[in-house]
């Protein structure tokens, strides 16, 4: 990996970290844990489409670790790692199937699997099956926010074609 690529990926990690921290300052709209605008997935999807899967994994990993250190809780590291890893794997698969077209479908799958990953992590930590009662609300919110982030990523890529 040359220096230019490393610096570009670092800048993307910083942007994703900033978006994540700003977004966690928004008060929750629905009183269900885990419903949020997953705006940091815009950066993950952007890096995946422009550079590749490994670079997207690096950016995601750095963002999750730094965001949880900055917010000051180790317990949310497990939730975020599960959710982020499942999100990345699903987005890689769908991206490979669709050849980087129809980005909103990829990001909807990413958001849905992110929420499923967080619920599974919560079920492991709390050791109770009854937490899966949150799953329908989280699926619906994941589909809606995934559509939004997918459109954001689509417009970002189409507007930044010659620049980055």
């Amino acid at each position: 990996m040359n220096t230019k690529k490393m610096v570009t990926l670092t800048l993307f990690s910083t942007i994703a970290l900033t978006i994540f921290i700003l977004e966690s300052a928004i008060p929750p709209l629905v009183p269900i844990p885990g419903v949020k605008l997953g705006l940091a997935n815009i950066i993950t999807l952007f890096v995946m489409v422009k550079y590749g899967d490994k670079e997207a994994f690096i950016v995601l990993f750095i963002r999750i670790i730094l965001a949880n250190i900055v917010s000051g809780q180790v317990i949310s590291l497990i939730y975020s790692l599960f959710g982020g890893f499942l999100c990345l794997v699903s987005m890689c698969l769908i991206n490979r199937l669709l050849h980087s077209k129809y980005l909103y479908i990829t990001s909807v799958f990413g958001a849905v699997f992110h929420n499923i990953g967080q619920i599974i992590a919560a079920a492991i930590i709390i050791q109770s099956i009854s937490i899966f009662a949150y799953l329908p609300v989280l699926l619906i919110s994941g589909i809606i926010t995934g559509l939004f982030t997918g459109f954001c990523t689509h417009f970002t890529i189409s507007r930044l074609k010659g620049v980055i």
Partner: protein
Amino acid sequence: MKDEVLMLHRISKQKSIILNNARSVDNEWVIKRRALICCILLFILFMVSCMVLYFMDHSETENYYAHIYQNGNLIKTIDLSAVSQDYTFTVTSDEDAFNIIEIHDKKIHIIDSNCPDSVCIHMGYHNNSIPITCLPNRLLITVTSQPDAENTENDIDIIVY
């Protein structure tokens, strides 16, 4: 010799151009079909979630038993129908994290907590569909109709050979 090598190189380049064009034209319809399948899957998922939400029992419960789990361990069982007067108590997890739970009018809810997002306070009183949780403090409150906890089948009481 050099001419033959150049000619072979040019032929292989033209062959790869033709193959690439054929592959991209063929893939356009295949990608559209895959995208349609994904859309239909997501639509079905959306509809199923909506139906499950619609048919879940959202009523508030009364006269049941509340179980309070902290870190996966049952720490308290409260018979809500036998509570004659409202009271509050505090549940602490490690690292100075607390939740204050109040039983008011035979219903249970969380009043105050020092978790960062305070979603648990806005969950309100318990209803039949979802349990009350504070995920940063690993707290879970479920209300069932039996006085025994629901996780006892995981514990093995005795093994006889």
